[in-house]
C-alpha cells in the first residue's frame, strides 16, 4: 500500500525494490524521448542514464501516494557506471526533507540505484512541490 505524504517523516526509507531494464523497456523509453524523431532505432548497449533515473523514480513513486498536481521543482543526479541493457537495478529512496509552506508541501527525496553487484550506478535528489 503506497504511503501518503502526510505519513512521511524525514528519514523514512522507502521499501527497496528492483526494476529490470529490459530491451523492450528501453525501446519504449527511447521512443518517448524521440531520440530519433519517431524512427525506429536499435536499442543501445547501455541504458541512457536518464532512463535509469526515470525508472528509479518510478519504483519510488509506486511506494508513495503523491496527490495529482504535484510538480517536480528541481533535480540533482550523478551517474557512476555504464549500465548494460538487461540489468536489474535495485532502487532505494529516503525522505531527506519535508517542509510545509502554507498550501504547499516541499518534499526532498534522495534516490540511489545499484546494480546486481551492489555498486552504485546512480544517485540523485528530487524536490517535489506537493499541493496540500
Amino acid at each position, binding site marked *: 500500500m503506497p504511503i501518503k505524504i502526510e505519513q512521511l517523516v524525514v528519514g523514512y526509507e522507502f521499501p527497496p525494490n528492483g526494476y529490470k531494464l529490459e530491451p523492450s*523497456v528501453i525501446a*519504449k*523509453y527511447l*521512443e*518517448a*524521448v*524521440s*531520440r530519433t524523431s519517431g524512427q525506429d532505432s536499435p536499442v543501445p548497449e*547501455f541504458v*541512457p*542514464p*536518464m*532512463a535509469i*533515473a*526515470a*525508472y528509479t*523514480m*518510478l519504483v519510488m*513513486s*509506486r511506494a508513495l501516494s*503523491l496527490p*495529482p*498536481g*504535484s*510538480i*517536480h*521543482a*528541481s*533535480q*540533482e*543526479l*550523478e*551517474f*557512476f*557506471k*555504464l549500465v548494460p541493457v538487461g540489468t536489474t537495478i535495485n532502487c532505494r529512496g529516503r525522505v531527506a526533507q519535508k517542509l510545509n509552506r502554507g498550501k504547499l508541501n516541499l518534499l526532498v527525496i534522495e534516490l540511489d540505484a545499484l546494480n546486481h553487484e551492489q555498486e552504485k550506478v546512480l544517485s540523485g535528489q528530487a524536490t517535489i512541490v506537493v499541493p496540500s
Partner: protein
Amino acid sequence: MNKELKLSDLHQGDSLSSVVKHVTQENINLYAEASGDFNPIHIDESFAAQTPLGGTIAHGMLILAYVSEMMTEAFGNSWQAGGKLSVRFKAPARPEDIITVTGKIDSIEQKEDTPYVNCDLETRNQHGEIIVTGKATVKLCS
C-alpha cells in the same frame, strides 16, 4: 552524429551542440507510458485546465532526457558513467513548445589527474522563456 569531444577540443566558453525538440502531447503521453508517471497534470487536459498551470505540461524528466541527450552527444560514455547535473525547473514546457537545450563550458579542472568539465545548462522555449537552468559536470574518461 556529433563527434564526442576530447579534452584537446574543449575550451572555457565553448558552446556544446544544441538540441532542439518539438514537445507534443503525444510525446508527453508516450513518456507517461514509458516512465509510469501518470500524474494528470501531464496527461489529463481537463484536469490540468483547472489548475493554475492552465493546461498539461511535460514531465520534468522528459526535458532532462533532452539535456542528457545533448551531454551524451558531446561527451559519450564520459557523461553516461561520470556525469553529474543539478537543475531547477523554472517554467513548464507545454505541448507544441519548441525546446532548445544549450550548454556552455564554464571551466575545465583537474582533480587527481582526471579532467572535469563544468558546464552551464539552459533550456528555453520558442518564446525565449527559461524552462530549465542548471549545471553539469563531466568526468572525462581517459
